[in-house]
């Protein structure tokens, strides 16, 4: 009997199964993702501004993803219990604190209480954190727990939480990168929002990061004769890198677009599927008042000069 066609069909289905499983099915779920809401209620993600979108094309054309990934990982989540308000019954609170953290001596507990708002304990399970919050809520004291993703990427300050499919909704091509010859860039806009820093870094990486192994990108800049007034776009370079007198180094449109893209890179919004509590939003009354006070101080400062 000729098994040929049967075997051919079997092989066909074996291979086709992966097409259905790894191409079609993901397209039917993650391919249909829509904008979602952050835990604060804002729409997420929002499309990048136009220059940043052009910058993504510069990023693609120059193969930046050959060395840089854009995917933060996290090894887990911990729950930090934050004591926001001591309430009125300090003694009871100190006792409760020692119950939550049996290793704590009474003196240490009092010392901790003197530094409110303060993170008093860290738990790996949510139920434990919940229980601790209940224990600490005595005599009007206010405690809450914060969701904190952890992992080497987050310790390095590369991001606040792991990346999820939603983060890349409006990026085409979606360049996740596969190697970290350079640092991860998923949140480089948060880490380094200074446009001029990025321009100087692209022009001469070692001038900004000592020992950097990144190549320089002189073709994203042009050297031109300075006018009577130096261009506002000219790079402020150190003396050994600066062009000779009467000349200046300015970024090309591609260079500017690339930097616009880089500073637009941030994926730290708290999402339902990748939750994170923002520390600043946590202590409700104290926090807002404090930051408001700081903000007014900051705006007032120049005026008083």
């Amino acid at each position: 009997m000729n098994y040929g066609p049967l075997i051919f069909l079997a092989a066909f289905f074996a291979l086709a199964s992966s097409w259905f499983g790894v191409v079609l099915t993901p397209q039917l779920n993650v391919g249909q993702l829509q904008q979602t809401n952050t835990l604060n209620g804002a729409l997420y993600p929002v499309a990048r501004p136009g220059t940043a979108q052009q910058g993504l094309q510069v990023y693609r054309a120059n193969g930046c993803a050959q060395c840089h990934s854009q995917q933060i990982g996290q090894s887990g989540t911990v729950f930090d219990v934050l004591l926001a308000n001591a309430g009125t019954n300090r003694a009871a609170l100190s006792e409760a604190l020692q119950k939550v953290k049996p290793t704590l001596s009474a003196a240490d507990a009092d010392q901790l209480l003197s530094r409110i708002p303060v993170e008093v304990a860290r738990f790996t399970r949510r139920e434990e954190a919940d229980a601790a919050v209940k224990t600490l809520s005595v005599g009007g004291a206010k405690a809450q727990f914060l969701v904190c993703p952890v992992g080497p990427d987050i310790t390095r300050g590369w991001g606040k939480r792991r990346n999820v499919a939603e983060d890349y909704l409006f990026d085409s091509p979606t360049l996740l990168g596969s190697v970290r010859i350079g640092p991860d860039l998923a949140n480089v806009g948060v880490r380094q929002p200074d446009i001029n820093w990025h321009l100087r870094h692209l022009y001469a990486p070692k001038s900004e990061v000592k020992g950097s192994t990144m190549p320089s990108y002189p073709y994203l800049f042009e050297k031109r004769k300075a006018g009577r007034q130096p261009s506002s776009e000219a790079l402020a370079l150190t003396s050994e890198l600066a062009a000779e007198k009467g000349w200046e180094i300015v970024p090309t449109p591609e260079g500017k677009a690339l930097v616009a893209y880089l500073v637009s890179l941030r994926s730290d919004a708290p999402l339902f599927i990748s939750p994170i509590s923002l520390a600043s939003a946590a202590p409700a009354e104290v926090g807002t008042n404090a930051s408001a006070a700081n903000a007014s101080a900051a705006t007032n400062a120049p005026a008083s000069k």
Partner: protein
Amino acid sequence: MSATESPIPSSSVGSSPGCGAISSGIDSSSRLPLLILFGAGAFWLVVSSLLGLISSIKFHSPNFLAEPAWLTYGRVRPAFADSLLYGFCLQVALAAGLWLAARLGRTVIKPLPIIAGAKLLNIGVVLGVLGILSGDASGFDTLNFPRYAAAFIFGGYFLIGVPAVLMFHRRAVRTLYVSQWFLLAALFWFPWIYSTANLLVVAFPLRGVAQPIIAWWYAANFQFVWMGLVGLAITFYLVPKVTGRELVSQNLALFAFWTLILFGSWTGIPRSAPVPAYLPSISTVATVLTTLVFVSVALVIWKTVDGKIGLLWDSLSLRFVTVGLVCFLTAGLMNIADSVAAFGAITNFTWFTIAQTQLLSYGFFSMTLFGAMYFITPQIVGRELPFPKWAGVHFWMATLGILFGLAPLALGGIVQGRNLLNAEVAFVDVAKSTLMFLRVSTLGDVLILVGHGLLFVNLLVLGLRLVRITCQAFLAEAISEAQPAGVKS
């Protein structure tokens, strides 16, 4: 089981005069198209290893050739990878596959569509490499050729693939040998994955992470499944053929076939990818199950030579194939280790994964193709290569090149990964910790380039000699025809 035919008894080894009329017919019919594909493949090999050397120097001297935009690392590196994959691997694999199909099925190759296909294919690779260098790359590894280049490559593949299918259809030997199973599956699978990936990722991109998912799926299916199918087809043909022993268990070889297409095709999604969790999970399971492929392939070959590795070492072609096989098994082990959580956490995002994919596409597949080229070429031209000894030098250059080029990358990757996990180590120091390994790997790239140069010159001189002989024969014929005509009038 219809696969019972073995390649040994039907035709004799080599281009000895004892060759049957049919196989010499197969050889002469395939001479021109195969030489074109081999020659162009060797040309791209040299181009690719030159680009590879440049990018390898840039690993540790980032400002080497930083100035012209088209020579920046982010362009040279994908140009290197894709010119190897499409210029050499795809092209020479097609040639070797055609020859195998003709030999095993006792049919002749129709040269015209193959030559046309080779032209389209090479136009595609030229456009692709220039496209990447000029900034048109798609940004996805193994899929970096811009869409206009991909269209040519697809067309070229179509022109070669359809005649290949027709050859299977009209084969004189009806029973199928295992190699033919592998080849037939590969023949159908490539256009499927290539069109899917190029349409959904490059030409009409889907939204968000659907793009990288499909790109990963394509890369695994091209570099592991497709290359595995073609490479093993060649291995399972050449080993019995040259050693004169029958392949021990065709059923075990077929088991490797089924496990490769069933499990191999689901691999490729990295563990840490920001995609729905079921994808990396399934992929990991599939990767672990590919152990079956490697174990069965190793068993088949081991039993065929009865544990006497020396048998494989006697013939130069088989030496290439053997090193290729060792690389296949090593790359497989690395991939399985990579997918297991404890080790994968270290090697994720490091040079280790780069070493692994290169071990597959260069160490395994290209080496196997070299073996096939050195075996097939003398047969189709009916003469030795101009510099037969260079082949041995090429072998050592390539083998040492793999050893010095890829082993340091893999080791450096582990060092890099351990440092990456330790947030106390500043990132600049992580990058610095790999520098020594990268410098050593440049040495490997130099050796590889030299080897490729030898192969290319060998084929070039052979081609020139054949052209001269053909011209002389043509002239002689024209003169001998002209003279009697002159006498008569």
